[in-house]
């Protein structure tokens, strides 16, 4: 057993998690998958021997959604990554203490959404979430960056931040990995925690604008890491609107690669081009709708002659 890392020993090698794994699809090398890591550790391999596998993972959560044993695969991979990277940098958490809160809903954006002012304005307007003067962007972005290298802060470290969130009615989170973390810490009964796409799709104006000829690209992390809750919701949307989604036969979201982190990745990290080819292969559509700002550019580069729009844009030009 590796100290502080457990759960991998439950893996029975069924292989269901390899089916949606982006690295598997691009390498067909089982050691680069979660199952490969788990079996290697079960067999007594040292962490260093699976370093390439740990670093190559894009943390899309597809293995966790697929696991028949209910293993928290993302947690294990993050812990392995933290053990490899030995990242113990202190966090500037004190700023969160005792901040006044007036909103009932808050949007926690990611770097890409913050950088896309137009989509950010449209999103906050549609969701009726004013951008707070101090919206904690700096610490949020710091956290998101640290998550990628496996640094998961203890709940006590974020006490002030969580105290703020727990009083809210709804928290909308653009980053799927961060949403997973927050969902684990905050009881659902108190605060509703949603992904950005899900929050927007709840607006009738947006849902009704989806067409059967649309290909809707779900942000994979947000969906896969919250699979049991998200799968029925998106199934219903697809059923009501007729639109296709980037789901495989297990109803697991195929990531575009928009979440690929160049700092942690390596030569085995799956390429976006391969991911998008997998999503588009054999599908016909006349518009692509994306949840994640990062995906707009990726898909515009991949598909010629088909409009690519952010889900917020479905509300129309005069929505605000």
């Amino acid at each position, binding site marked *: 057993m590796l100290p502080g890392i457990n759960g991998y020993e439950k893996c029975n090698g069924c292989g*269901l998690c390899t*089916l949606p794994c982006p690295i598997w699809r691009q390498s*067909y090398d089982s050691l680069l998958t979660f199952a490969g890591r788990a*079996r290697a550790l079960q067999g007594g*391999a040292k962490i260093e*021997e699976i370093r390439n596998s740990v670093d190559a993972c894009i943390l899309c959560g597809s293995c966790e959604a697929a696991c028949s044993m209910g293993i928290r695969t993302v947690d294990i991979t993050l812990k392995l990554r933290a053990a490899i990277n030995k990242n113990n940098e202190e966090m500037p958490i004190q700023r969160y203490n005792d901040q006044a809160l007036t909103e009932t809903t808050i949007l926690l954006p990611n770097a890409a959404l913050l950088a896309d002012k137009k989509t950010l304005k449209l999103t906050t307007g549609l969701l009726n979430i004013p951008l707070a003067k101090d919206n904690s962007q700096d610490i949020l972005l710091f956290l998101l960056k640290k998550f990628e290298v496996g640094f998961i802060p203890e709940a006590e470290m974020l006490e002030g931040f969580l105290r703020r969130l727990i009083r809210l009615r709804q928290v909308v989170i653009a980053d799927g990995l961060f949403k997973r973390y927050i969902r684990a810490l905050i009881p659902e009964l108190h605060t509703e925690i949603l992904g950005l796409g899900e929050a927007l799709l709840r607006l009738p104006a947006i849902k009704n604008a989806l067409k059967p000829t649309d290909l809707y690209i779900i942000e994979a992390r947000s969906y896969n890491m919250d699979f049991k809750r998200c799968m029925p919701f998106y199934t219903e949307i697809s059923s009501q609107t007729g639109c296709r989604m980037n789901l495989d036969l297990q*109803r697991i979201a195929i990531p575009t690669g928009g979440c690929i982190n160049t700092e942690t990745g390596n030569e085995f990290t799956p390429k976006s081009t391969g991911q998008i080819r997998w999503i588009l292969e054999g599908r016909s559509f006349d518009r692509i709708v994306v949840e994640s700002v990062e995906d707009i550019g990726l898909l515009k580069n991949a598909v010629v002659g088909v409009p690519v729009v952010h889900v917020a844009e479905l509300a129309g030009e005069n929505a605000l």
Partner: protein
Amino acid sequence: MTELPQSIKNSPDPVPPDSLKGVPRQQTNPSRWNGDGWEAFVAELVSQGITINQGLANRSGYITDGGGIAMGLPRGVLVARSPEDIATTLKAAQKYKVPVSVRGGGLTTEGECISFGALQLDMRGMSNVIHIDETNLTVRTEAGIYWHSLAEALRRRGLDYISAPLNMTSSVGGTLGVGGIDINSPKFGCSADQAIALRVVTPTGEIVECSEQENTELFERVLLGYGQFGVITEATLKIRPFTPITMHYFYYSSLRESVEDLRFLVEEEAADYLGILTMLDRAINLLVAFDSDEKEREFFNKYRKRIKGHGEIGFALHMAAHYALHPWRVKEALYLLERKRSLLPELSPPGHMQEGKIIDRTVVFSRAVWKFWGGKKMIIPDLATSSEKFAEAVEKGNEVCRRYFPHYTLYCVGIKLFGSFESRPRYELSCIPPDAHDFGYGCEFEPMLGNHNYSRDHFQSFKNEIYDIGVDMGTSYYRFGGMMKGYIRRAFGDELVDKHLAMKQKADPAMILNPDVIF
């Protein structure tokens, strides 16, 4: 007993003529290969640009198979990338006498795909779909591909495979090598019967195209050949338009009645999908499913009244009455109730249903299989019989299950045959029972192990008792290789086994390809 030719007696690894006597009753792993010639073998492959991964992390992934009972660490792993690489490797393996064990999804249960100290060839490195012919309804694919991945590629075009195991992580090549049974096998036969053409690397390293028209003998030997006569690298398979299926369940408390109804429906071709899944021998579920509304209507008009199964409410009342009269069996009743409560919703999950129809049967069943039957250890002895012997074989196997395990499941299917043993030599020495005509039948006996820690001896004794039934009744088995290969001569007879052994020795002079599976 037939006297073996001297050449066979002196061969490296023939099946012992005395079979059960020669193989201990508590048969376990084959002995580990001693490694003679390994370094030179690897060096020769490296000189030809082929890398064998010898790190522990890589090798650990191959230590066991789906059964989790046989254990063996390979000395090195080669992830197959091309037929040429495989051909080079097998030529070197012949030269240095290095055993090569081929693995796809790794879902054998008796250690058949495990390498005991030699080379593991992982075919999943060849998992690309090559061409989908939407006009002629065929697909050409690399054979390491999981059926799930193939299904996904086909589904995007509104197509589906015809028949594949109810397990998404089976590989196409591995399945063609052993048969491949689905609940639509009563209609379409086994997966191997869907193959139109194959590319095969022979044990001596030749790359050969084969089909029913070209290199027919190899084609017939490789299909259902348990990996003895070549490595399938590509396959052309029949496919069909995708259809969601409508599933109905009929409940029985009598095994014999359910098996007889299964046989009746199979032989009448009354449904598109048929199978039996039980909870112990108390709650027996006959699955009947349809690709079309017309077929469903025809079933209810013509056949429903002729089978004895209850609907859900009728069966619940029947069971309530039974346990009211047998109150000392309350624990069993509670187990059945809990099992039903947790299992049945998994067979119709909302995300995989559309207007009451199942749209991803393999996903639904495969997830259920792993969730409710899967575990680190699985033992699934089986019997494959003719129609006439089926009910008796199931009942005898059930009695064995009852004695060994508190909880178990039986899974029964029918298999349509396409021709005789003469016209389809692939059926010879396979899971197709030699006395079957038109249809064969199979029953898997699977204990629910839960958190119990049974010994290997307990498992092996259980399997032996099931297999002894087969020997006594003259049946075949789906899983007769690996740790159960000691039964081969008893089940199939010396003449047939010697015939295949001679063919194997001719095709694989050093006997290096998939050793200890059959020979």
